[in-house]
């Protein structure tokens, strides 16, 4: 019994110290003097790597999820004779929930794991230590540009996901199942509110971006520099980031839409 309690205490302590270390790493990376010119260029490079290169998976997934929504929504709505509300249903599900959440999950799998593995490998091959010895802080040089790139890319990817999803919904609903094109789009336009739906979606996406990228760079920076350590850290990134996104999504939804 005592052992059990001691075990809980130990693991709580170690998780708290992990959180503390992660916070310190993030703070050191994003605050403090840095060479803005150079770091801006590095950030742009990283936006290409984590953002632009994630476009294909985001667009394809967005299209299919929009199409599935169109199909499922149509079969349900048509029972009540209200299939013209399909546009509204597709757009609201995407902007409020599916857009930010699914994009963040895909981003964790596609870009987050790659960030962890890359930083981890730089640690294992002593590149981070070598930066330090050259007199360059790896937190500013390696971690900060990757962090900002993630924070900037994910909300944009999420908007792209939503837009493509709406098109997918229209493709199935309007072109295939024969919902009236005018009522599909005008219903969507009338029901989606910018500040309630789109803006809240962007806020969600921004929160997910910070959390997912933070987890990814921390896991990479703090891993045990062996092949096993890198494998474990990459897995952790995807698992922790996904859980954090889903948990935070419930919390944010409750705060944003709970009173309606």
């Amino acid at each position, binding site marked *: 019994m005592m052992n059990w309690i001691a075990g809980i205490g130990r693991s709580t302590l170690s998780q708290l110290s992990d959180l503390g270390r992660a916070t310190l790493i993030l703070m050191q990376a994003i605050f403090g003097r840095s060479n803005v010119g150079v770091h801006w260029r590095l950030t742009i490079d990283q936006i290409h790597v984590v953002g632009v290169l994630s476009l294909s998976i985001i667009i394809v997934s967005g299209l299919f999820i929009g199409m599935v929504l169109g199909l499922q929504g149509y079969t349900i709505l048509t029972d009540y004779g209200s299939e013209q509300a399909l546009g509204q249903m597709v757009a609201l599900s995407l902007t409020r929930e599916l857009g930010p959440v699914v994009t963040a999950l895909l981003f964790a799998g596609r870009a987050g794991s790659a960030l962890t593995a890359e930083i981890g490998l730089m640690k294992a091959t*002593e590149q981070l*230590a070598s930066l330090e010895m050259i*007199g*360059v*802080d790896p937190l500013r040089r390696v971690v900060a540009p990757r962090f900002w790139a993630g924070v900037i890319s994910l909300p944009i990817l999420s908007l792209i996901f939503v837009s493509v999803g709406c098109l997918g919904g229209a493709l199935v609903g309007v072109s295939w199942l024969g919902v009236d094109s005018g009522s599909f789009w005008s219903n969507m336009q009338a029901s989606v509110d910018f500040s309630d739906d789109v803006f809240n979606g962007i806020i969600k996406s921004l929160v997910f971006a910070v959390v997912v990228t933070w987890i990814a760079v921390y896991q990479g920076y703090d891993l045990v520099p062996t092949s096993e350590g890198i494998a474990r850290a990459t897995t952790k990134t995807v698992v922790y980031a996904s859980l954090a996104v889903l948990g935070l999504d419930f919390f944010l939804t409750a705060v944003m839409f709970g009173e309606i």
Partner: protein
Amino acid sequence: MTNEAFVEIKDVVFRRDQRVIYDGLTASVPRGKITAIVGPSGTGKTTLLRLIGGQLKPESGDVRVDGLSVQSLKRSALFGLRKRMGMLFQSGALFAELSVFENVAFPLRVHTDLDDDLIRLVVLMKLEAVGLRGAVDLMPSELSGGMQRRVALARAIALDPEMIMYDEPFVGQDPIGLGVLLALVKQLNQALGLTSLVVSHDLQETLSIADHVIMIANNRVAFQGSPEVMQASDDPLVHQFLHGSPDGPVRFHFPAPSLEDALS
């Protein structure tokens, strides 16, 4: 005294988790010479380099580089001091996404305002010094291990440091590569007036170029002096190490309860 010794280490205690690495280590590295750090594996020779570079901090004791106490320096002062040291890592640690040219140019771009023409000139000179000017446009992945180490060496001397630390520079080299690196270490030391610190397992090779030897064993300095004195030493520990005897003061067996107890 500070004029003679570039690095002075006094009564350093260092622990990694529970394991004691150093217990009162005292040593000094003479200026402008090649100092070899030798000792059995796992005695923390690389740790010593990291203490000198300020990447690790001792629990107690003092590490001074050119009179500056490394462990109490502020972050910015420490990074300033590191510009005066070069370090060659075991793996070379070249930046994989940059070409050979950009790797060597990296410290120059970060720490100086030189224009591109001048950077090119310096980079080519440094690569010439390690004999790899022809490889300037290659990527690190296209080089052999020994060549990577030589490029890393060019990068380490890019800012004309006062001291250079080599972490196992000879590991995994064929006899020719080893000879090239040995000659380079010696040449650079003489031509640039560097203080060199070489951590190595390759005892005979390292001793052949070293002016000064620090041997670490059992958490402290077991021997300090010139290679000739070391060869002549009748200390059993030094003797065992020099001659590679399997048993002696450094035990073959990892500490464990007696065999009878473990098997019963």
